[in-house]
């Protein structure tokens, strides 16, 4: 941004906000979720996050050196991409896949477009889509999902280091595929019948279920996002209308809305990915349209799609539409009246 000379009439309001500060605040707010992932998935979660962050930072620095532009890794945005990407993978995925995904996210989705502020898509989600397209087995197979090791006492009798099992949404998908006609409000008990013993709403809320390492704990992510909202860094409209939309759509279709809100990556997506300042719309109205679109596509992919989870793809899909949303939701200028058509 150094190249731009901003000329405007006074008086000016000075703000202490800067990209660096905001990014570090967001990184800080992800610490509870990181702690919960460590608590449930063990040291593996920290290791994968570190691999991802280091890969993202090194890639960004190397490309910026190569382009002979100022190296801006200290602004924390590459670190954020790294953390979010790692939060999006199962715990037992080979580490080099995470490294490559992180490289792709920074190199293709961010630096090819000119770096922070110019990317069209959320880099971490492009990294996830890339990994899902390239290594579908590693990203989705039950072998790589881990059941939480530690627990609040809900799961007794687990003495092994890790037990791999399908995620709750995976079980629901399998159940739906086996019998597509069943539309039950009590999908959770169906999942329980399928061998997922002990998962209650409380387990889903605190994160005591299998899933991607950073997505399972709704509680930790909620703490983080409330912290960001108090600082005024997150527009509450996107998470509110996104989660509200998922509630309404799943309820209208006859599924269990609470389950669909708590399960999968909705919290991570709605709180951290969809609210990304660069890739979400500018105006409040645009943000509401954006969030409702997200909810629609998420539910559509979860219910009818080929994947159990639709959060990441729905955010990417709506990212494509953000320039159009911005164009058609330009706020009315103060004092402007509609020009009268001259006949």
């Amino acid at each position, binding site marked *: 941004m150094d190249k731009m000379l901003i000329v405007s009439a006074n008086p000016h309001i000075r703000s202490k906000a800067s990209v660096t500060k905001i990014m570090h605040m967001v990184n800080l707010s992800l610490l509870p979720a990181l702690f919960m992932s460590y608590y449930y998935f063990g040291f593996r979660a920290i290791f994968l996050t570190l691999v991802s962050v280091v890969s993202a930072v090194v890639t960004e620095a190397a490309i910026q050196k190569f382009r002979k532009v100022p190296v801006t890794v200290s602004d924390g945005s590459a670190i954020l991409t790294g953390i979010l990407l790692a939060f999006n993978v199962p715990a037992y995925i080979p580490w080099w896949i995470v490294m490559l995904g992180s490289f792709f996210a920074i190199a293709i*989705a961010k630096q090819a477009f000119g770096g922070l502020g*110019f990317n*069209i898509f959320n880099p971490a989600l492009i990294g996830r889509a890339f990994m899902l397209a390239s290594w579908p087995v590693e990203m989705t197979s039950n072998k790589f999902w881990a059941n939480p090791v530690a627990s609040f006492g809900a799961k007794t009798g687990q003495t092994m280091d890790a037990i791999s099992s399908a995620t709750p949404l995976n079980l629901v998908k399998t159940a739906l595929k086996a019998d597509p006609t069943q539309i039950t409000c009590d999908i959770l008990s169906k999942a329980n019948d399928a061998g997922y013993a002990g998962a209650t709403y409380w387990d889903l809320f605190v994160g005591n279920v299998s899933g991607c390492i950073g997505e399972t704990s709704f509680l930790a992510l909620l703490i983080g996002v409330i912290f960001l909202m108090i600082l005024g860094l997150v527009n509450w409209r996107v998470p509110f209308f996104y989660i509200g939309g998922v509630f309404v759509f799943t309820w209208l279709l006859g599924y269990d809305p609470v389950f669909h809100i708590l399960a999968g990556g909705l919290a991570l997506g709605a709180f951290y990915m969809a609210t990304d300042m660069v890739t979400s719309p500018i105006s409040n109205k645009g943000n509401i349209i954006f969030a409702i679109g997200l909810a629609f596509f998420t539910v559509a992919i979860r219910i009818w*799609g080929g*994947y159990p989870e639709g959060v990441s793809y729905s955010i*990417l899909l709506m990212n494509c539409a953000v320039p*159009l949303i911005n164009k058609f939701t330009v706020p009315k200028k103060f004092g402007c009246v509609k020009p009268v058509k001259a006949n």
Partner: protein
Amino acid sequence: MDFSHLVVIAVSSIFINNFVLGRFLGICPFIGVSKKIDSALGMGMAVIFVMTLASVVTYLIQTFVLVRFELQYLQTIAFILVIASLVQFIEMFMKKNMPALYQSLGVFLPLITTNCAVLGVAILNIDATWADGSHYNFIESTWNGFTAGIGFTIALLLMAGIRERLELADIPESMKGTPITFISASLIAMAFLGFSGMSIM
């Protein structure tokens, strides 16, 4: 007439098998005419028009000429010839009788005439089968052409919006122009992967 078939066709050709982002047909107008939203919309309208028309005509040609006289091996050349000449004829007719519409479609109409996406929709209409082995009927073919055009228009508009935004981006010198457009297109296609395997029946 099964209404659910029409819904399946619409969702399939707009989202799941989007002509540009799922089947990778019609890439040249997609890259070529996506610089501005206005021209993208014009191109989209022309594509909807030509695809619908092509579906109607090729269905009739296939059913009443090629199959009847056992000339299916002439399918490709017959379709190209018929679509191109028909669109040219309509263009002349519009120029004379509907100058406003002709102006708004402008240069896009002849551009799209022999595009692979148009030939693609014609041939896919003939080849597509339902689960029970039956083929698309006349209304389903026409509807498929129309919705495929809408899917193309949506892809084109998304691309145009992104490219208008990229005008202001600090893109590396070697990436400017077509390269970043191709990268954007591939990333949009990756986002559309989310629809793969979707079944609404």
